[in-house]
């Protein structure tokens, strides 16, 4: 059975990647299982300078979903390189460095600093809903997407995956803009903007008032967007949003994703991703599919 997929000429052992922000820099999970069994790891977002992030509470539970408002807490790109890369360098899996920023200059600065580092892909996070500037402000409309992608592409030797926001009108137009600006792939979706209220205290649950909605609740939205983007672009797509099982992952592959990412799953089940990989294999066995690439875009409409 072949589970290998190819993205921009790089081969993933299987199509299941840990999503950014839900896996730290891999260290904590490495005591749970062998990280080399993963298709890849998207690392926690890094910015030019250290950020302490938003005050707590940063998480709220919602029906079949959750809100988070971490706010890009990280030690900055320099510390990332010094502190995290030595551990990551030893891994034999595909690495996605998730790059965030408040300005185009910041995106460029971070990407430049990552040039001599052994990360396989740059994942341009222009879709974080939890920071005042940057993030969603760049990722919502085709013209701003085009601008930032064009600039960052110039400095990036690694293939550039652009991570899109679902908080938009026309996701396909946004994906096309990224492709035209030189993106080598699209990952989607980041979180939907949401809110939750403690009626007894008459206060929002998150200190940040609103946060990013993830988990099973958003899977239908994610699937629809992946399917639309797959009709619109020719570059590979990495789909995510609410994947909890192998069968969920297959839904994304059928809709046109070459690989998938699992985020929230890791917050619930430390052994979640290995189970998703096993679930895909089980599905393939049941349906007598030898090569996972047969599933990609295989939806019958």
């Amino acid at each position, binding site marked *: 059975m072949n589970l290998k997929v190819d993205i921009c000429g790089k081969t993933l052992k299987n199509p299941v990647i840990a999503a950014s922000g839900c896996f*730290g820099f891999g260290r904590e999970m490495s*005591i749970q299982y062998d990280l080399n069994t993963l298709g890849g790891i998207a690392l926690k977002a890094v910015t030019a300078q250290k950020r302490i*992030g938003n005050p707590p509470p940063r998480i709220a539970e919602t029906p079949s979903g959750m809100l988070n408002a*971490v706010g890009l807490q990280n030690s900055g790109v320099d510390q990332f390189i010094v502190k995290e890369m030595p551990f990551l360098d030893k891994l034999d899996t595909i690495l996605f460095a998730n790059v965030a920023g408040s300005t185009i200059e910041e995106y460029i600065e971070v990407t430049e600093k990552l040039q001599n580092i052994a990360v396989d892909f740059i994942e341009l996070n222009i879709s974080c809903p939890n920071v005042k500037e940057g993030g969603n402000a760049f990722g919502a409309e085709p013209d701003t997407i085009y601008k930032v992608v064009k600039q960052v592409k110039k400095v990036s030797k690694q293939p550039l995956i652009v991570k899109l926001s679902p908080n938009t009108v026309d996701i396909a137009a946004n994906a096309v803009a990224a492709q035209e600006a030189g993106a080598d792939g699209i990952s989607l979706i980041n979180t939907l903007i949401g809110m939750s209220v403690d009626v007894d205290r008459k206060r929002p649950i998150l200190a940040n008032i609103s946060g990013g909605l993830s988990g099973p609740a958003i899977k239908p939205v994610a699937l629809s967007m992946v399917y639309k983007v797959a009709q619109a672009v020719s570059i590979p797509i990495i789909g995510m949003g609410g994947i909890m099982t192998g069968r969920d992952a297959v839904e994304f592959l059928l809709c046109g994703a070459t690989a998938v990412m699992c985020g929230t799953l890791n917050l619930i089940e430390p052994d979640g991703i290995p189970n998703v990989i096993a679930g895909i294999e089980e599905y393939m066995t049941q349906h007598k599919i030898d090569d996972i690439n047969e599933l990609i875009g295989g939806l019958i409409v």
Partner: protein
Amino acid sequence: MAKRIPNCRITSNELVADDTYLMQFECVTKNATPGQFVHLRVTGRDDLILRRPISINSIDTKNNIIKLIIQAKGEGTKALCVLKAGDVMDIISPTGRGYMLSKKVKKAAVIGGGIGVAPLKYLIEYYKNVEFDSYLGFRSDCYAYQLDEFKALSNKLYVCTDDGTYGEKGFVTNRLDMNLEKEQYDVVLACGPKPMLGSLKKVIDKHKVPCFVSLEERMGCGIGLCKVCVCKTQEDGEENYERVCLDGPVFDINKVVL
């Protein structure tokens, strides 16, 4: 190491105070330190996607039974509290950095409020060679639990209730404050709601005793991945957010901003 066990069998679950249950379940958890917690998910409640952190109240290592004290508050804890012997739940156990006492500690005070009393029992059971005075606060008589056990395990036991229905009327931090005028403790170990920890901080500042507190924060993974569970810390003038689930829940009271 924190490990997921998807099918933990509950062996008993009984009401021990108003809205408060003593749950026991089968689980091989070796080397759990006091102050560590288990992270629980209600099997079958797929709408409640997050786990609930609950402190270890006691471990019966011979029979591999963990005891928890769970207060039925919101949807998740309510669902946990109605589980019966034979039901299963999905746990991660144990996780967090607990109370770690150096060999030098001979005499200590534990101080807990409400549901924060629960982990202190495992603490005073665990450090058998330390002499503990226990200071326990409850809103009211009807919310108090395990007083007999604390009595048996403690050197001295002080119980306060907000309304005076049991023990002394008033806040247990006041009792500690008064006692610290004469008593010498090598360390004070606390767990309880934020306002209580705030008052405790003042008492500690005044009497200059080493003190470690266990904090509560809303959690995601419980194992250090997601950084949602943070508390503000201050060291050398620099503010930071540290993870309650992995860097804590037990922190030096002088490090955290309460």
